[in-house]
């Protein structure tokens, strides 16, 4: 029976999710994720293309707030939690590649 998810798929998805996996984990997760997806085959088989999806259990709309300022956080408190900070900003390792 065809695997619901391949090792390559898992490796690709790990990259998308910025997770570094060991070879061991890759192997194990492929099996485990496969088992879950196989279980989910019961709903994959349902013929419900014309059933509208539910994104929200609540029928709310138009929840808005006024354009009025509210005090911001104290910068020191914010930067105190930062793993690295410099010159009033969060410091991160170099970024290769531009933002989309």
């Amino acid at each position, binding site marked *: 029976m065809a695997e619901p998810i391949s090792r390559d798929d898992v490796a690709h998805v790990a990259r*998308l999710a*910025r997770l570094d996996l060991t070879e061991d984990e890759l192997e194990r997760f492929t099996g485990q994720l496969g088992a879950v997806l196989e279980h989910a085959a019961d709903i994959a088989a349902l013929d419900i293309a014309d059933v509208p999806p539910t*994104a*929200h259990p*609540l029928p*709310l*709309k*138009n*929840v*808005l*707030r*006024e*354009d*009025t*300022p*509210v005090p*911001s*956080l104290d*910068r020191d408190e*914010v*930067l105190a939690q930062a793993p690295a900070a*410099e*010159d*009033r*900003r*969060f*410091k*991160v*390792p*170099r*970024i*290769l*590649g*531009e*933002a*989309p």
Partner: protein
Amino acid sequence: MTTAVATDWEMVIGLEVHCELSTTTKLFCGCRNAFGDEPNTNVCPVCLGLPGSLPVINERAVEYAMRIGEGLHCTVEPSIFHRKNYFYPDMPKDYQVSQYDMPINARGWLELPDGTRIGITRAHMEEDTGKTSHVGGGGRIHEAGYALVDYNRAGVPLVEIVSDPDIRSAEQARAYVSELRAILAAIDVSDVKMEEGSLRVDSNVSVRRTGSTEFGTRCEIKNLNSLRSLVHAIEYEARRQIDLLESGDRVVQETRHWNEDDGRTHSMRSKEEAFDYRYFPEPDLVPLAPSDDWLAQVRSSIPVLPAERRAALAAAAGASSTADVAVVIERGLDALVEAAIAAGADPDRVVTHAVHNLAVEGAANLDPDRLADLVKMETDGKLTATQAKKVLADMLEKGGDPASIAADLGFEAMDQDVLASVVDQLIADNPVEFDRLKGGDQKVMGFFVGQAMKATQGKADGKVVTALLRERASS
């Protein structure tokens, strides 16, 4: 035997313009939406994406987005937000809350000054990211040692305006952005300053053989910080793609970065890094469905837009060129011009003054009746064009009415007979030159006009002198 036909290329351009809205607070929280504040001082759990934080939509941002939709003749529709998932340090949540397949505004257009309509696919709402500065390596991304992130801008409301791929030249792209900027400024939703980043332009460029209806592979060009860059980048990129295709290569679909210094676009993406944004509806927000009342109220709040002003001015001004009309609108002088024309002034003269002599701050405050009086003095022959220009300059600087100013300056148009006798005297004094004029030498006309000016201390109307000379020369 068929004739060889030169195959030409056509460029196909679509523009994505991000417009920062000038709301007081951010899109999803009450932090101030301000440019230039101390780093990380306008942040809170929501715009920092702290664990447990939740977004709540700013009503004014929705209103401004609807105004943009109305201003661009879009249909304003019920919409939802989606999450666009990707990792980047200027993204506090590592997803951006944006709109995907149900945007608030869709299917509109705008009209360029020359009358061309460019389609607008959509104008949707989304949140802005923080700002990253690359440190070390001359500030270039590739050589940087590390980066610093400021989240003041994270969460600022944006509307992304996507044009249909209707643009066919770099100049047309420039005209599109200028017109869009004028519209956005008119409806007062943004500061629209490219240099401050409240208006950002990315360009999708592809090429195809003229006459083809298929689309070529396109590249997205980023880092266009001015209209000049936009024009140069598009021209460069189109040429780059044409060269590739003509040499048998293909264009790779990718994002490219415009480098102002070397005048080229550069590939930014490594090939394997395809962005799968995994869009899904934002579960922390509920749908937007603006009421008919709200929509009607927004619609009625839209002021007269540049295209309408151009149309009104063109109607009032008659035969004036579209370029002149565009300049007048750009300078905000249309109300003045229309009023002066309504007061009886010659439309062409008024427009000419507006285009050539009123490029100063405060010109729009000129009294239209006085402008009309000035123009009438001209058309009545009481002032030459040169004199009128000087009087106008004085009017702008010190105020006052044209008749008094002209009198003070000692301007009066020369009596026609007096001028005729001056001309006759010149002819008598310069028989060689007059013979050349009679022989068809037009250049010597300038000599006579100059002499006439000298003889009359500048009071002669050059046009009248020329006409008299021509008359004499042909008799």
